[in-house]
């Protein structure tokens, strides 16, 4: 019985198949390894700061007393940025998906995406050199007229380099993220739902309220979460704009600090235990953003129909 040439002569090809599929698998696993490596190496380098006697850590009261105010500062900056950016971003997304003329829509979408293309350090420089001086008179007004609110307590910063300015710059940076995700979702609203609403006599806004927004709600929530992740980890906007200091309730005085900016400002000159402290701070930031992002992705993956949303 002769050997079947179809099954025997392809040894080289089969080896090629094995090598190639092995290489792709290895690349995939490498990505998982890198992500776990990020956590692992951050933990290894952070341990000295976590076990060091409290007096040796900057501030003299241990790592958690050091990191606590910066975590709060990070959250304040990110939340204000989202409060500013979310309504505008949803408005822009609705404008591009349902209001702008069809022919212009993709071009206008590209213009908004340009906001995402501008490097963060340029935003930081713009915030420090242009926005802060422009906005400081407004802070003076807020301090004298609404100073009874703790968040607007005076005296206002004369340079305008406050956490509120940093948050405004951050809101500009997260705007394109929330916009592009929401836009994708709004465009996927079933046409029949929209047409049914319009046929029943709804105005355009009523159609959006009863057909588009309910359909897009989970998508909007996850878009906001992704924006939050970005705002929490953004470094340059805060490092260049904010003149940092101790945690204060007032948003229009200099003060407060975020984790990312604290690392960027101190890491280049740091040595010894200080390096560990900053890496531990980075670990805290990593854990916070990882949690936020995983929740966002989980919401997206629960609604598989938003395939274009990621």
């Amino acid at each position, binding site marked *: 019985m002769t050997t079947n040439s179809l099954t025997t002569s392809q040894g080289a090809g089969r080896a090629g198949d094995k090598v190639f599929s092995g290489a792709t698998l290895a690349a995939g696993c490498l990505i998982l390894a890198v992500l776990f490596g990020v956590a692992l190496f*951050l933990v290894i*380098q952070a341990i000295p700061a976590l076990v060091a006697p409290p007096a040796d850590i900057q501030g003299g009261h241990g790592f958690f007393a050091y990191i606590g105010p910066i975590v709060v500062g990070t959250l304040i900056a990110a939340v204000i940025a989202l409060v500013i950016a979310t309504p*505008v971003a949803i408005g*822009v997304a609705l404008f591009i998906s349902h209001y702008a003329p069809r022919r212009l829509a993709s071009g206008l979408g590209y213009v908004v995406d340009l906001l995402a*293309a501008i490097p963060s*350090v340029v935003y930081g420089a713009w915030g420090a050199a242009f926005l802060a001086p422009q906005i400081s008179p407004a802070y003076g007004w807020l301090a004298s007229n609404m100073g009874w609110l703790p968040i607007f307590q005076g005296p206002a910063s004369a340079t305008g380099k406050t956490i509120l300015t940093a948050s405004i710059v951050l809101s500009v940076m997260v705007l394109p993220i929330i916009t592009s995700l929401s836009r994708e979702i709004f465009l996927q609203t079933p046409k029949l739902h929209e047409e049914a609403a319009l046929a029943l006599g709804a105005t355009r806004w009523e159609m959006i309220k009863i057909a588009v927004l309910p359909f897009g709600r989970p998508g909007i929530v996850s878009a906001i979460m992704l924006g939050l992740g970005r705002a929490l980890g953004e470094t340059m906007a805060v490092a260049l704009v904010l003149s940092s200091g101790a945690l204060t309730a007032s948003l229009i005085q200099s003060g407060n600090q975020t984790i990312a900016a604290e690392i960027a400002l101190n890491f280049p000159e740091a040595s010894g235990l200080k390096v560990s402290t900053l890496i531990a701070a980075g670990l805290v930031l*990593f854990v916070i*953003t990882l949690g936020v992002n995983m929740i966002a992705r989980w919401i997206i993956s629960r609604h598989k129909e938003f395939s274009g949303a*990621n």
Partner: protein
Amino acid sequence: MTVTAPVARKRSALTKGQLPAFAPYVVLAVALVLGAAILALIGFNAFGWGLVSAILFTIGLVGWSAAVEGGRKANDKLATCLIVGSFLVALLPLISVIWTVLVNGIPGIITPGFLTTSMNGVTGALDNKSVDDGTKVLGGVYHALLGTVQITLLATVISVPVGLLTAIYLVEYGNDRALARAITFFVDVMTGIPSIVAGLFSAAFFFAVVGPGTKTGAVAAVALSVLMIPVVVRSSEEMLKIVPNELREAAYALGVRKWRTILKVVIPTAISGIASGVTLAIARVIGETAPILVTAGFATTINNNVFGGWMASLPTFIYTQILNPTSPSNPDPSSQRAWGAALVLIILVMLLNLGARLIARIFAPKAGR
């Protein structure tokens, strides 16, 4: 005939209770005039004029609509005003940023030698002298440009094979297995890693493996790869997914091995999309500052060795020139250099974005769809 003419001139019952088509223009004109008048009283500026006019326009149009058309139509008009307004508000920072960079950056970039000299030997004393004498600002971005190109190139060399192979695994071999789903999920999560954490990871990794305080261009390139790989994976995956299955089946039917099908049929079909995705990924990481700050240090001289010594890059150059001017008493030359570098960086990023679109268009998918 004589009866119908006056009837036609009367408004139809169907269009009764609607604002005439010219209503928005009338309200806009009134709002602009009123806005100018109000601003003239409290001191005129263009931004305030636009803001006051927009508010007056909204109030006027919605009020008129509420009086003539009723509450539902008025709400619709209000929503339209707010949505169009939010788009205009979003354009403000874009225009403002680009304007600021152009105005401040052009004096820097047209200074002779800005693109071809490094900061080697440029001291605060020289800056003070150039301010006092009014001579040209010395120093430039050559070393930073060189560093950016080297670091980004190395990051691309690391990221593209890993990212592309992973995308191939997900599309061709994954079959929605648990591992493929895990990789997809964690790639998505990785897109959200703060850039400074990627930098710290790379620094921590090299501190642990090579030795404490290791700061070179290669460390920065690894940090940028962590940011770049997920972008490459996602875009390549999308592109491989839209390659029609008929092409694969045709190749299999001819007896071609799977790996040769992928290399010779699938990838060439998707190459335009993959290339434009890679270009966009480069555009994303080329402007990253924080990871380079913690991994490559600062340098004022040209460093041609990615694997040894501190290295400058455009973003960190901008950052240090603003935060620590070369001459603390005269920050103007430093800020001129910083804005010049910012302009160079923005031009670079915009060219990459434009390039990505061109690649996608010129090498459009060869598969008929």
